[in-house]
């Protein structure tokens, strides 16, 4: 039977504009030590508010240190409250949830593409792929240099290229511009970020490459029971929280 966990906060620090890195003691997770691309639903209320849990991806699941690291952007009520977590606090987490990135046997040239708050899930993924012998290039997109984070971590995996909308770091423009500029060659693509980015990548590469994209939707249950987080796919409506958040390129049918 599945469990809910109470994890101890080890660290919660600002790493970029409105962006925090939250490290949790994951030693009690046991079988629930997460796979890349999965996420946790965090309960951040004290006294019942906010009502819903907040879905946050796994950035780093360090089996040696037994730590679970998440990176979150302060967006609204819930993430703002999260900034108040201090070492020693217990955080109630539900997960790991969802179907993550398929990595079985993946050992060729891999391109990781992250946009903004879509960057976090790619790092744990990259670590696992690297361990399997994959050759990794990372392209990350941010609004500007002030929003950029995790460059150091990704550079341990291979070359990292950055695109910023305002040109304050790396290529001016979007991740697609940086991929083109650096003529990145790859067999398999893994990406997470705003839907427009995912759609652009999907349309550009679904004919020629393998690839997996991680999507976001507003969630309530997080386990596939409420039908709140659907996405249209070739095989009909699917639940982002349970059947996703990762879908193969070509699967999702984008709206307008």
């Amino acid at each position, binding site marked *: 039977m599945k469990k809910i966990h109470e994890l101890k906060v080890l660290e919660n620090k600002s790493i970029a504009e409105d962006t925090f890195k939250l490290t949790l003691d994951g030693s009690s997770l046991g079988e629930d030590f997460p796979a890349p691309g999965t996420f946790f639903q965090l309960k951040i209320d004290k006294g019942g508010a*906010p009502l819903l849990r907040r879905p946050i991806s796994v950035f780093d699941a360090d089996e040696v240190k037994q730590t679970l690291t998440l990176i979150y952007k302060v967006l609204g009520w819930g993430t703002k409250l999260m900034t108040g977590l201090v070492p020693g606090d217990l955080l109630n987490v539900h997960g790991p949830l969802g179907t993550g990135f398929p990595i079985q046997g993946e050992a060729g040239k891999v391109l990781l593409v992250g946009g903004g708050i879509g960057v976090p899930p790619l790092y744990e993924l990259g670590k696992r792929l690297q361990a399997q012998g994959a050759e990794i290039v990372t392209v990350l997109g941010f609004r500007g240099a002030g929003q950029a984070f995790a460059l150091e971590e990704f550079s341990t995996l291979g070359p990292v290229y950055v695109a910023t909308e305002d040109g304050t770091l790396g290529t001016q423009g979007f991740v697609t511009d940086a991929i083109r500029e650096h003529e990145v060659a790859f067999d398999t693509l893994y990406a997470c970020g705003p839907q427009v980015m995912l759609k652009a990548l999907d349309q550009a590469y679904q004919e020629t490459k393998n690839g997996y994209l991680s999507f976001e939707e507003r969630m309530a249950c997080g386990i596939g029971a*409420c039908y709140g987080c659907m996405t249209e796919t070739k095989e009909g409506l699917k639940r982002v929280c349970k059947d996703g958040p990762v879908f193969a390129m070509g699967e999702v049918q984008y709206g307008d």
Partner: protein
Amino acid sequence: MNPLKMTLPGLDLKNPVMPASGCFGFGQEYGEYYDLSRLGALMVKAVTWEPRRGNAMPRLAETPAGMLNAIGLQNPGIAGVEKELVWLEQFDLPIIANVAGYSVEEYVAVARRISQVPNVHALEINISCPNVKEGGIAFGQDPQVAKELTMKIKAVSEKPVYMKLSPNVTDIRLMARAVEEGGADGITMINTLVGMRLDLRTGMPILANGTGGLSGPAVKPVAIRMIHEVYRTVKIPIIGMGGISSAEDVLEFLYAGASAVAVGTANFSDPYACPRIIEELPEVLKKYGFATAAEAVGYSHRRK
């Protein structure tokens, strides 16, 4: 003797707590968290005759102590739901099928067929879904329409029929009396209040559907008030819901007049909400001086 035992038309409940329709799918997902046989019953997701796609995304928004949903009755249709119900046969668990429709004919056809499924012990007729353009809530806001629909469904159903009332009405007592006159065996209430949230960036409603149904603790005082009113108005039993998240909440609903309760939104923040509440209930009953849950039903009305 089991102090949580409760008997309602068609339902011999080992305890009075069940998941609310639409908040628990067909049980598979929460079945990975605990043995579903612990539940008093299970109200499954709404079923229509044809498969329905439901509304566009986003379908969810958070509100203070509540949430809005506009799922819009997405379901695999009667044939698909029948298959799901087979899986549920492994549990010692009476199923309450939630019936929806876009026309009287659809309601009647679905009710007739689903009432024949063996582990379905009762029907809950959803005349209060605020998230579909036709049908749904329209049946739940006009007493005469509700009464006639109740009669037609009663004529074909092989199982007791509970009518699910909408709180979006001027006088809930008129609706309750109408469905009682129509022959309903019980009432379930409340469905969601119609609400809306706007996205400050885009100016558009957060929900693609515009409006959605408000559920969660925020609506609890409205649910209690309406159940309190309806208990004095009709003789048929009430299954109460709206913001329940603790055993104390259950007791408040029993006092108001509910004979059993359903838990919806609370499952989302705590997947163990139902078994937790069931486990805490005996102690809470004892704390307030009740030997059985049944004793607490309508207690508030005997205190004047």
